């Protein structure tokens, strides 16, 4: 099962504060364990929302709002994509994670939809299109 493991933002991450060498080393070691166990598929940190933007959709209208965005608790600072046997396994691994922030922090785990989940709404043509799109996106990564 595939999961997105979402590191929530904190005042430090939104301020663009660099993590300490100790935290980086601890995270590096943890990430290495995740990779060696075959759990980690991908992961990235995001620049603060002050560098970001939001787009709102109303019919054909689009409006763009520049960051930063006020509700730090609702923002994300980074993520991993993990492959685990179950939510329980993902939680077990996540509990071993060093606190990613200097202050108290939170990480959310969400299961990723697969083609099978969509059932009949995903017609054979759409499923083929989906598979093709993903396969070619993988090539773009190289």
């Amino acid at each position, binding site marked *: 099962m595939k999961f997105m493991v979402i590191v929530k933002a904190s005042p430090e991450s939104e301020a663009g504060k660099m993590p300490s060498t100790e935290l980086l080393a601890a995270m590096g070691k943890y990430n290495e364990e995740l990779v060696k166990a075959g759990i980690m598929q991908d992961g990235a940190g995001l620049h603060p929302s002050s560098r970001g933007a939001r787009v709102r959709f109303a019919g054909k209208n689009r409006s763009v709002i520049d960051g930063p965005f006020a509700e730090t608790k609702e923002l994300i600072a980074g993520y991993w994509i993990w492959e685990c046997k179950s939510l329980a396994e993902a939680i077990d691994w996540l509990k071993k*994670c060093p606190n990613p922030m200097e202050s*108290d922090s939170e*990480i959310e785990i969400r299961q*990723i939809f697969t083609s099978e989940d969509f059932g009949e709404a995903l017609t054979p043509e*759409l499923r083929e299109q989906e598979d093709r799109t993903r396969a070619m996106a993988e090539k773009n990564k190289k």
Partner: protein
Amino acid sequence: MRFMMLMIPKGYESAAPGTMPEAKAVEAMMKYNESLQKAGVLLALDGLRPPSEGARVSFAGGKPKVTDGPFAEAKEVLGGYWMIQVKSREEAIEWATRCPAGPNETIEIRQVQELADFPPEVQAVAQKYPEMQPHAGKSN
């Protein structure tokens, strides 16, 4: 430059377990996804099951604490994401505006941190973990 486009659908925070997107919306989104891929900008994408099926781990005072979804105080939650590679922030925003999203949806655009963005001391530590750096050094 890499950017995440984060889909934030209003109301998803209270979606019941097993909630699925509608077929019409899925079809329109697939067309959009294909256009991203054909333009050569799409790196990755995923839809997320609702928070009611998820969990959170919080780190207060160093001890991990697990809470099952749904999360009462959450006003905005992720429904999915795209990771794209484009030449500028403007180009990323332009792609986001082309998404066939509805009035209850917001897309947040966030630039991905590349190794080269960090100061030398930070890069030095990160380079000790080579398996971690599939995209190291790509800061365009």
